[in-house]
């Protein structure tokens, strides 16, 4: 009887631990490759990291543009992939904005205004999140589809599938799709 009670208490304690830890992580899907949306994603990620949360960003489709290296060779890929890679921006410094892009004038204007108002640039926000231990998981399927290799992405990025994202999403209480 006493043993049963002790075992029951232990089980309940474990369940409480699990429930309390539920609020300790943030999972995001970064689908968009727009500069402004990526800014929002990395500001939220950094805030959560500062609050001591475990943050996982699952990067898929156009979002992959955000975590590309500024320059890489497109050799060793098919013609369509190479055309696609040429047409898409490489890295945070080349992204378009979702509104008022005006053929690339918009982003320049935004970057200029951000500099004047002392808003941290996107590249620095990404670097800071990495330093704080963000987990960035690039979607294997969209990488294959768009002809992106792991070496084309910034260092420290993992490659995974939808189950990696879902596993993390079910562990936490907050999931964002950007």
């Amino acid at each position, binding site marked *: 009887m006493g043993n049963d009670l002790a075992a029951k208490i232990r089980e309940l304690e474990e369940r409480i631990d699990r429930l309390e830890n539920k609020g300790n992580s943030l999972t995001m899907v970064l689908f968009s490759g727009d500069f402004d949306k990526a800014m929002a994603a990395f*500001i939220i990620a*950094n*805030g959560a*990291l*500062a*609050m*001591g949360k475990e943050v996982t960003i699952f990067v898929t489709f156009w979002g992959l543009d955000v975590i590309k290296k500024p320059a890489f060779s497109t050799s060793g890929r098919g013609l369509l992939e190479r055309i696609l890679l040429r047409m898409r921006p490489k890295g945070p410094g080349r992204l378009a904005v979702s509104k008022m892009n005006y053929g690339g004038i918009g982003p320049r204007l935004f970057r200029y205004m951000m500099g004047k*108002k*002392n*808003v*941290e640039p996107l590249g620095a*926000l990404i670097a*800071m999140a990495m330093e*704080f231990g963000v987990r960035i998981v690039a979607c294997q399927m969209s990488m294959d589809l768009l002809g992106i290799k792991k070496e084309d992405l910034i260092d420290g990025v993992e490659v995974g599938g939808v189950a990696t994202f879902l596993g993390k999403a079910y562990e936490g209480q907050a999931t964002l799709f950007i």
Partner: protein
Amino acid sequence: MARITLDFRGMNCPMPIMKTAMAFRKAAQGDQFEITCDDPGFEPDITAWCKETKNLPCDIKKQGKDIIASITKQ
């Protein structure tokens, strides 16, 4: 116990919170922080940060545009 003064004036979201978190990481238990920032969002942000990271209590004073938060690392 050390007294640490941080000046985050002129910085924008999320930098004051990030820098606070970085400084707290390096600090020892019982260290007292005085953080000055002039971003209006800093007041609700630091209050939420203190609550979430259990570095309570957070004492906030205002001096003109400046918001001064006093926090002790628990």
